[in-house]
């Protein structure tokens, strides 16, 4: 049975099954959109937190690190409450749309990227602080330099965020609803097809998801080895 399911799954992938690739395409669209928004939010948060001194900074760092472990279903529930008809953003009518799924993923991965970026920037700031002081470069002018010099480590953090977003199921199933041809992404489809006993399509999606995870990890390894070669980490 497993072998049959596996060979059918491979056949679905090889034949370019339109339904399969529609789900894949939506997954990539949702996750890359969420990633783009998260990067715009998270990098400044991580950087500013690392290079500035203010009362309560340690508490902020602790909270940020804690948010890395946000349970996806809780995020899904909170976003659901915000977007549901009776919620504060209900008027926008976003519930059960890809946009709602993007929002949920943004909430989920922004703290992850921000916390990883903070670690990278904090280390860099400790190393560069006195040099920048010596050269008379203030924090605002230093930010582009920090971002550029931490580029390899930041790409790794961003890829980690993408990996988390694309493989997430709990939040997107709550706010997206797993509607066919509208909000069905790889993870939610796998959950549904498995429950229906349609193992071939579930396995096909699983194989693609694994390949994506492999690709992301290969990217991380490549970026890291380039950076190590140049002593840029």
């Amino acid at each position: 049975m497993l072998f049959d399911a596996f060979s059918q799954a491979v056949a679905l992938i090889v034949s370019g099954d339109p339904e399969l690739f529609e789900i894949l395409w939506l997954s990539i669209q949702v996750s890359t959109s969420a990633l783009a928004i998260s990067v715009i939010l998270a990098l400044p948060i991580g950087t500013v937190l690392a290079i500035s001194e203010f009362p309560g900074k340690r508490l902020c760092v602790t909270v940020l690190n804690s948010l890395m472990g946000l349970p996806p279903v809780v995020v899904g529930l909170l976003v659901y409450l915000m977007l549901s008809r009776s919620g504060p953003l209900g008027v926008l009518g976003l519930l059960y749309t890809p946009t709602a799924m993007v929002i949920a993923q943004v909430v989920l991965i922004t703290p992850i990227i921000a916390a990883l970026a903070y670690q990278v920037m904090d280390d860099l700031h400790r190393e560069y602080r006195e040099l920048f002081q010596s050269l008379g470069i203030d924090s605002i002018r230093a930010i582009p330099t920090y971002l550029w010099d931490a580029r390899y480590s930041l790409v790794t953090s961003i890829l980690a965020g993408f990996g988390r977003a694309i493989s997430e199921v709990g939040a997107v199933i709550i706010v997206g609803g797993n509607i066919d041809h509208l909000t069905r992404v790889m993870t939610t489809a796998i959950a549904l097809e498995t429950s229906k006993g349609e193992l071939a399509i579930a396995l096909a999606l699983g194989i693609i998801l694994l390949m994506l995870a492999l690709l992301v990890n290969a990217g991380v390894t490549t970026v890291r080895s380039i950076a190590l070669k140049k002593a840029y980490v």
Partner: protein
Amino acid sequence: MLVSQPFEALRSKKPMSDSVIQTHQNAGEVLALDGVSLTVNGKTLLHDISVHSEAQGTTLIMGANGAGKSLLMKCLHGLLTPTSGSIKLLNRPSHETRHQQAMVFQKPVLLRRTVMGNLTFAAPKTTPPEVLHEMLERVNLSGKDQQPARVLSGGEQQRLALARALLTRPKILFLDEPTASLDPASVLIIERLIQEATADGVKSIFISHDIGQAKRLADDVIFLHQGRVTEHTSAATFFTQPLTSQAQAYLAGDVVL
């Protein structure tokens, strides 16, 4: 070749008269510290330091480990703010001369970019490329301009850090043990650059434990012991007739307590 210059060439400095070092405030002072103290976490690390000097050339800060040399240098350069007292450089408050100062750290801090990228980061925007290449030649790094800076050897990294500092055209150059654990060729190049800079009118303030190097470079010496300046004299006097028992012990290579 820069490295081929013999050490003897570096020893031709004229001994400086003690009269150049002033003990009272003077209109032409390069360095003026009055009652500088630094307390960190309730512990006083620098005690009421007052030093006045109109000496050009190289001032050497010497003392045993933990005497407060690097802390004093960081206070002078504005990286640390003294708890009390005032610091004037070039007759103006230290912070007003920030753009006229540069510092080379014991462990070179290089940006994660190429050798040339490190130079262009610090050099004034209008610096012509030929000046940057000429500087690389002076520090024996020509041909390495596109290499990642952090894969250079320790000596090369420190020479690059010095080149970067000199490109900012400082009037005061702070050097915190820049040649510690470097090979003789790198030491020679760095000493030569410092001498060239001082000949061009740059005031160098240098920390070193190398007594031979101190004799080659120093015009005057500030000796620190447990956060206090116990001696400030011309180099000739310091190395021949140190006044305090701590300086005598330090120069003799004894443990200074």
